[in-house]
């Protein structure tokens, strides 16, 4: 999982039962549309996130419908595992995993070496 995916999962994991508006997720994570929409689509395809249109009439509300996202049951478990693994990988003194901006074999920041 990429950093952006983990950030989105962490935002959704703060309250797994709550439905989040896509723009709120983007603001919390710091992503704009070009990165946010493909990411949400991938998570939805993977079954980690479910979405639905909000139950409002656009003519009555005076604005378009919003798409609401929340973690699925499987998504909650997998998000917790993924975030825990990422925190473990990034913890001081641990060997950094490849793909996280460091090369395997080099000493991790914090003075610890493999």
């Amino acid at each position, binding site marked *: 999982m990429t950093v952006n995916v983990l950030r989105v999962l962490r935002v959704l994991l703060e309250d797994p039962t709550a439905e989040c508006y*896509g723009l709120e997720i983007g603001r919390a994570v710091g992503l*704009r549309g*070009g*990165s946010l929409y*493909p990411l949400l*689509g*991938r998570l939805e395809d993977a079954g980690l996130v479910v979405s639905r249109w909000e139950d409002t009439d656009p003519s009555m509300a005076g604005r*378009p419908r*919003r798409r609401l996202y929340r973690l699925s049951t499987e998504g909650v478990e997998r998000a917790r595992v993924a975030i825990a693994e990422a925190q473990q990988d990034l913890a001081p003194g641990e060997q950094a995993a490849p793909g996280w901006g460091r090369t395997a074999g080099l000493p991790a920041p914090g003075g610890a070496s493999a």
Partner: protein
Amino acid sequence: MTAWLLTTLGGAVVAAVVIAAKADLEDADVYRWVARRLVYRAALRLPRGERARWREEAEAHLLDLPGRLLPLWWALDTYWHSGSWGRARGAPSRLQALIGQVRAAGQRLRSLPAGLLRARPRRYFPPRTPDWAPLQPLSTTRAVPLDSGLVDLLAAERALLLPGFHVARVEPAFTLDEDLSAATFARQLRQQRRDFEADLDRRTEQYRRRLAEELGL
């Protein structure tokens, strides 16, 4: 000195144009229109079944973003990444779409009726068989040997033009249901030619007479 003056004048003109354009853009709310167009164009790069969903969602986000430039920036970012986004969702790239359009055009061309395709060269090349047929009575099976005098006569008849009135031959030119020999056929042609000329002379004389009466001569 001249360069400094030109630079100052040019800067003033550019500043005036930018200020005027900015005022017009703000008045017309062009930013949101451009942002919506960008989102629309970005959605066109997605697979057909997903366009409406993402477009509606992105437009809702544009309306909820504050200010004028932030929605435009959001839409620009969406459009900028829409190519890779669409390919990730299974849509063909622009090159693939172009190749598909060319192939479809070729298939449409090949699926045209064969007769239509064969008919095209006929516009540029004349048919091998002439439109005219050898002059012969229908009841005979051999061609009529026409003498040169008769051919000249027929050609002169076709070239005959008189101003002021039209000449039309109403009776059938030839009697085709009789078994005609070549000599009889040529004789009939000459007789019809004489009758035609006599009729022509009569009508010409009538025309001159009527014209003289009208003019009081």
